[in-house]
């Protein structure tokens, strides 16, 4: 059991550091320790509500790809450098430490690419480089008005008609739908079997006739996601990923991909937030307050024990065993992140909700992040669903 990085990781970190020193866009200096989805917080503390993927962020993602730094574990042709798992951990930590995001839209590199590499055919795998480079913007059509946590209840239908599927139905909360070129659409292909067994996954071009996108603003006001309506949308039959009615297996795969990589970012953000609470306390003259000190130390304890838990899960994952630790990370980092933001507002007293660049502090940073933090406790499996998963799959309690 070692505590430190070996020479290979140190060299890797140095190479990455040199690259970042040279290429990281200056825009990141404004700080992105919480933002991610839904636009950028400008100098004025306001979200740039309509420009959800700024041009500079697109260029940055392409630069990462071109230098083999977008997904280091991938082979060079997919924007990587065949990095080891441990190097990937080093990579994610270094980006988080510098508060640099790889991309402003995760579905393409985070969900679509790993799913296509695992379940797609040779033709479909060719879509991966553009997804990782960010040249193609993807969205994920899972949730529907009547199928949220209970994803398997989805009703958007796809009926086979010769060499194509005809899709009818509606998706909702589809992030990036208004700017995306392609969508991973989960559809019902068989209504007569148990609900998990009649779902398929289609790749759909967003400019296909019959698709209507109606943007929905996030509670923070940014144009974050959308409703997507499908009316007799024709999709070539070869656009199915995997087998007909095998879509549920892919959802489990892609959600696992989403969770596995996210914990490092989640933990690093949480660490950063807790440490900046100390700065807020100092600026507000509360750093000698016994209650404040204890509260912040308690949050630090939670964040750093979570990080240790992440490493532990990582170690068993790296050795090829499944890591129940990962199930805890999403729930805990999202909930604690929310609590930290709320505490930041508390420390600011009356100025907590102020978003006036000439008044208050940090341009409403804490309240902005507090608002955004709900995305993390709801999307991708709510905290309640995570607790169900832990209870049933990790602790082995019976299903209700």
């Amino acid at each position, binding site marked *: *059991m*070692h*505590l*430190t*990085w070996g020479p290979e990781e140190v060299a890797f970190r140095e190479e990455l550091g040199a690259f970042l020193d040279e290429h990281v866009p200056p825009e990141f200096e404004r700080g992105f320790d919480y933002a991610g989805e839904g636009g950028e917080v400008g100098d004025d503390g306001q979200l740039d509500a309509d420009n959800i993927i700024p041009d500079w962020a697109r260029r940055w993602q392409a630069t990462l790809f071109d230098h083999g730094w977008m997904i280091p574990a991938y082979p060079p042709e997919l924007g990587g450098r065949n990095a080891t798992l*441990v190097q990937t*951990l080093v990579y994610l930590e270094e980006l988080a430490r510098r508060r640099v995001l790889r991309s402003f839209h995760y579905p393409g590199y985070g969900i679509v690419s790993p799913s296509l590499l695992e379940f797609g055919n040779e033709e479909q795998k060719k879509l991966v480089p553009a997804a990782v480079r960010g040249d193609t913007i993807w969205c994920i059509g899972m949730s529907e008005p009547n199928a949220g946590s209970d994803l398997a209840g989805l009703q958007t239908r796809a009926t086979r008609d010769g060499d194509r599927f005809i899709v009818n139905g509606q998706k909702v909360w589809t992030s990036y739908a208004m700017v995306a070129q392609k969508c991973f659409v989960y559809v019902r292909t068989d209504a007569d079997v148990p609900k998990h067994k009649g779902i398929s996954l289609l790749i759909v071009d967003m400019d296909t006739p019959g698709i209507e996108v109606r943007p929905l603003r996030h509670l923070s006001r940014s144009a974050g996601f959308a409703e997507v309506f499908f009316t007799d949308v024709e999709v070539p039959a070869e656009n199915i990923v995997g087998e007909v009615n095998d879509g549920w297996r892919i959802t489990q795969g892609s959600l696992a991909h989403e969770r596995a990589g996210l914990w490092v970012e989640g933990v690093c953000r949480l660490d950063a937030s807790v*440490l900046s609470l*100390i*700065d807020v*306390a*100092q600026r507000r003259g509360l*750093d000698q307050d*016994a209650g404040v*000190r*204890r509260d*912040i*130390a*308690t949050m*630090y*304890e*939670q964040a*750093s*024990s*979570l990080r*240790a*838990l*992440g*490493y*532990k899960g*990582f*170690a*068993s994952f*790296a*050795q090829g065993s499944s890591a129940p*630790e990962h199930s*805890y990370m999403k*729930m*805990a980092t999202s909930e604690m992140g929310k609590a930290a933001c709320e505490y930041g507002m508390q420390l600011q007293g009356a100025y907590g909700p102020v978003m006036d660049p000439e008044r208050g502090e940090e341009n409403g940073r804490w309240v902005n992040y507090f608002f955004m933090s709900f995305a993390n406790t709801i999307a991708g499996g709510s905290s*309640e669903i*995570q*607790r*169900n998963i*832990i*209870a*049933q799959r*990790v*602790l*082995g*309690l*019976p*299903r*209700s």
Partner: protein
Amino acid sequence: MDFSFSDDQVLLRDTARAILSKECPPSLVRAHIDDPAAVAPLWSQLKDFTALGDGPCTDLCLFIDETGYVAAPGVFFPTTAMFAPLLAALDHELLPSVLSGEVTGTVAVAGADGHWTLNDEPVKTFVPEADRVDWIAVVDTGPTVRVLPAADVATRQTRMVDFSRLFFEVDTTGTPGSGVGLDPAVFNDLTARATAALAAEMVGTSRRLLEMAIAYAKERIQFDVPIGSFQAIQHRLAECSLAVERATAAAQYASMTLDASDAELSSSQERFRAVHVAKAAAGNAATRAAKDSIQVHGGIGYTWEHDLHLYLRRAVGSEHWLGTTSWHHDRLADLLFKAR
């Protein structure tokens, strides 16, 4: 960074588990309530492992975790986690016989306030197992250390809620000998080591309490279904298991930082931060697991006959020893606010 255990460590843990589940059933913990001599057969097994007291903290903690799982009574903890490392730091002649399991000892530091901080008070408090051990190392301001035969000092047992760990006041008035000086930094490291070991022990106790709750939730039927299928129970136990998992990882991390060289750590404070985090996380996990487990058990959990309270007692006792959760949070705050 590698959090995985070597094959030798896995073997050590499995060995500890096998011995302790056989030699330290709840019946032994109960027998010890009325007759502390009941631990003799357990000690005859554990004495083969006292050499862990002078090895890597990670190995010691792996073993101690398992002793916490069974709430093992007796002198193993003070001898290996406190006395042996202190003797090693002093290069004391007794060390070999301690590591071979022939001789046992404990350490006395706290004064009347119960805090593990240096003082010159003649009466030391919260000294574990002082009437069972052969030697008592008394630490005074300086720090200076006197290693006294236990028979030469007066002890008075402090009655505690936890029957599985016996605490004593030790009156050193009139005892002979001048102390040997100890580097204050070394004393701090020894304190950190004992605290990390206690955190590991508490993790074991927490795991026991949680496992009992999970097992009961699967087996107890109400409203025609196992109570574990109720979401209120599931979510309570999911949160509880998060607390236990966090504490497990934090304790492991703390023991790893204690074994690491200075150069391997991001800062010299990292060791102490890690230990405060570990003890606080373990305190939180242990008391939480105890409360949740009793709640999930309902009325049966409230009885003397049920074994739950043995571990509840251990959890509460440990949470208050070597610094409560809040105390460790406050020390952590001191480090964090100073560093910032």
